[in-house]
């Protein structure tokens, strides 16, 4: 990011010492800014680290000494959360709903995005816009009609129903993201493959899909994160404990505490269960995610 053109260091003008690449003004203010940045980083890491550590302590000691450290790593809270509070079922439900709906979302959206990106017609432009407009619709608008619709086909309180809803809901963003991605791929290879006698479907399957692996992985992981954390629809559509996804289970766990007494240890264990997979995905694919969520939206 810093250019190789080193500016002459002059004492006379302190702001220039840092070179022309420096934007944010003079020395002291900047040092404060840098210090604050590291403080924010520290607070972020410490907050989540603290949560993870407290998950290994029992509620009484958490309340007595909230700054205390666990004495050894007793996994009691996790076992309790997993078995008694039934986070196991919720984790399993969340996992398979998230995986299935994300795979299907990409599988359905990718061909559509490919077609829309390669076709130059009023129809394709109109349809792309039609998909993109969905991005601006707040979820609560479709909440009640979806509830009524699913109720009439007996898909309320059903993970299949929730899956379907997630797939439909993800279409605008995924089609939008992948259309942009397919547009950035060169068309020459397709033409060459077509000259070699490949059918259009074959071109898509054998030429475009391998090239689009990166973009599709990004889209998949973004959906994974979105569906794993989705709360409003899950709360509305799922009613029985055995169908709860993790956010719903967490809410109901917090609700029960007001009757059964606070169980912060168990709660922090539950929070770890919902956060850790996201951390794992982030460590695995961090850069791709950041780019997908920022540059992808910037276009």
């Amino acid at each position: 990011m810093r250019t190789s053109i080193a500016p002459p260091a002059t004492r006379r003008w302190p702001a220039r010492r840092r070179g022309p690449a420096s934007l944010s003004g003079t020395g002291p203010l900047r040092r404060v800014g840098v210090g604050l940045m590291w403080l924010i980083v520290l607070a972020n890491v410490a907050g989540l680290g603290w949560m993870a550590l407290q998950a290994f302590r029992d509620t009484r000691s958490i309340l007595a000494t909230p700054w205390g450290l666990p004495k050894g790593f007793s996994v009691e809270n996790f076992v309790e959360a997993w078995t008694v509070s039934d986070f196991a079922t919720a984790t399993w439900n969340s996992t398979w709903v998230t995986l299935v709906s994300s795979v299907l979302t990409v599988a359905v959206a990718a061909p559509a995005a490919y077609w829309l990106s390669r076709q130059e017609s009023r129809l394709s432009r109109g349809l792309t816009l039609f998909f993109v407009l969905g991005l601006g619709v707040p979820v609560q608008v479709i909440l009640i009609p979806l509830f009524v619709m699913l109720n009439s086909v007996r898909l309320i309180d059903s993970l299949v129903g929730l899956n379907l809803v997630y797939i439909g809901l993800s279409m605008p963003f995924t089609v939008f993201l992948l259309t942009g991605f397919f547009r950035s791929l060169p068309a020459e290879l397709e033409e060459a493959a077509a000259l070699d006698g490949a059918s259009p479907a074959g071109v898509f399957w054998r030429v475009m899909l391998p090239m689009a692996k990166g973009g599709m992985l990004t889209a998949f992981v973004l959906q994974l994160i979105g569906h794993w954390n989705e709360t409003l629809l899950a709360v509305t559509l799922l009613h029985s404990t055995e169908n709860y996804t993790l956010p719903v289970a967490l809410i109901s766990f917090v609700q029960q505490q007001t009757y059964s007494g606070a169980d912060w240890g168990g709660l922090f264990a539950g929070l770890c269960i919902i956060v850790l997979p996201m951390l794992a995905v982030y460590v695995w694919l961090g850069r791709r995610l950041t780019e997908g969520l920022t540059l992808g939206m910037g276009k």
Partner: protein
Amino acid sequence: MTTTALPRASSPETRSTPARRGGSLADQRRRLFVPFVGPALLLYVVLFVVPIFGAVWISFHKWAGSGPMTWSGIDNYRGLVADPLFRQSLGNTLKLLFVVGIAIFVLSFAMALVLRDMAGRKIVRSVIFFPHLVNALVYGILVGFIFNPDGLANSILKPLGVDAPPQWLAQDNLFPLIMVTMVWMTTGYYTTILMAGVDRIPPYYYEDCALAGANAWQRLRHVILPLTWDVFGVCAVLWTISSVKIFEIIWIFGASNGTGVPPAQTWTAAVYTYVTAFSGDSIPAYGAATASAVLSLFLVTVLVVLLRRVMRRDVIEF
């Protein structure tokens, strides 16, 4: 939806073999409309577009979810405007949109500037981005613990001699606390987007600035802001859309007070919609609930259109 798939195809009889020989890849591809776009379009229309129109339809009725729907015209909307609870919820949503929004923007922009040439910027960026991937419930619960009477905040204040710490989680203080939490959670995401914009500015602009003797403020005003203006526009639209659906971080505070419903002082438009339709205590009012959601959609639409107007500038090529 399928019949329009072949706008420029030749007549049906000649389409089979001759087109294959003479037709380009594009011609053949056009025929893949139904298998390629069909499923996505079908799912999108059935599970997204139809419910939107359904919502508008329901909002003109009085309906308890089951039983007969009675047409009531714009009564639901009139009722909402007169309902102090709805006005408060909408007010809270607007607070999130504007107050939290402006705080996020000022902070993210400042952070993007600091981060531009700071050592360790990649680490900082990865860390501050992470909250975007975490369910807001988690932050709600953490804040609930940090600020509970025995929590971390008071345990810091006590040694400092504060004997009567504020009632952090009292009904009237809760919403400001939630607003601060939203800023904490969201700033990193927008910083990352703005950084992408600031990084795009070629270094010779700054060299020009240095030659012209521009001070930091002038550089900000005449170089950085104009060149990142379009990214700001995108961020503003993104925040408008996402702030209107804020729900779970509010909801979790209802779960923890035992009633299942958060205090009315903290409701947002999304919470209002949910409670009006599904809160079990009273007869569900689907009409009023959808009407409030449709108003949210209207709000988003108006604001996005306005933002695009206001933020539109001549694109600066560089």
